[in-house]
């Protein structure tokens, strides 16, 4: 139930941000759309902790902040490699690392973050073995040391539905 309420509030906010209207007629049309969307989502049975993880929203926002810094750093590394006149600066290699995320959601967040930082791409995930392609030793270093792995909020875990 709390997921339904939270989704409803989120939809109202989204509608208002995207439209910016405050006229009564449009407002009621918006309210009808929100209720209709809630009903559809309920019928499809997609309102749960996985589609709408309210229990971890705030910690994730903090995580994103640190992730953005990682992204900027590795972007600069990749740009340096591109602009380097020596073509032997790239050292593409595959890396297999063990990741320590207990939950499926944590694994997805970690693998997505690794892909998001330029210079490393998650290629395959098999249980707790993550296969990563790295552009150079330097860009692969963070993955090798498991920096992002340690950064993902520890309590990202599935709440018993």
């Amino acid at each position, binding site marked *: 139930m709390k997921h339904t309420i939270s989704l409803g509030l989120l939809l109202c906010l989204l509608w208002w941000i995207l439209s910016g209207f405050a006229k009564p007629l449009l407002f009621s049309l918006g309210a009808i759309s929100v209720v209709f969307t809630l009903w559809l989502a309920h019928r499809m049975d997609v309102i749960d902790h996985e589609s709408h993880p309210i229990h971890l929203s705030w910690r994730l926002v903090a995580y994103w902040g640190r992730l953005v810094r990682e992204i900027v750093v590795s972007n600069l590394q*990749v740009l340096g490699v591109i602009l380097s006149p020596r073509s032997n600066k790239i050292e*593409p290699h595959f*890396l*297999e690392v063990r990741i320590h995320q207990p939950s499926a959601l944590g694994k997805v967040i970690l693998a*997505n973050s690794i892909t998001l930082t330029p210079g490393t791409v998650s290629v395959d995930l098999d249980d707790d073995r993550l296969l990563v*392609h790295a552009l150079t030793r330097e860009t692969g270093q963070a993955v090798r040391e498991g920096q992002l792995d340690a950064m993902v909020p520890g309590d990202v875990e599935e709440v018993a539905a």
Partner: protein
Amino acid sequence: MSLAEGVAGLLLISGSVLLVVAGVGIVRFPHFYTRLHAAGVIDTLAAGLFLAGIGVLFGATLGTVKLLMIFVFLLFTSPTACHALARSAWLAGLREPAATIENAEDSKSAGEPR
């Protein structure tokens, strides 16, 4: 030209420069997987700079909130697309460079491709 316009121009121009550099990278890098890395620059930093530049022009309006939402949306979708490309290449048997997989635990090359 106001200060906001100057800052916005600076952000937009540096974003454009990054786009060009990333394009050079896509052409220069030798293999499929390495080219993905160059494209990653466009997804994150270049797109971020562009959105920030437009955001500065908009100022504190609803438009800026929308731009922020676009950025968050990109944070989810672009790695998904990138991973889909890499994974399908891997499953199709593309092994570039030679198929040695480094195992991070013992940091020796641990043999066979799966």
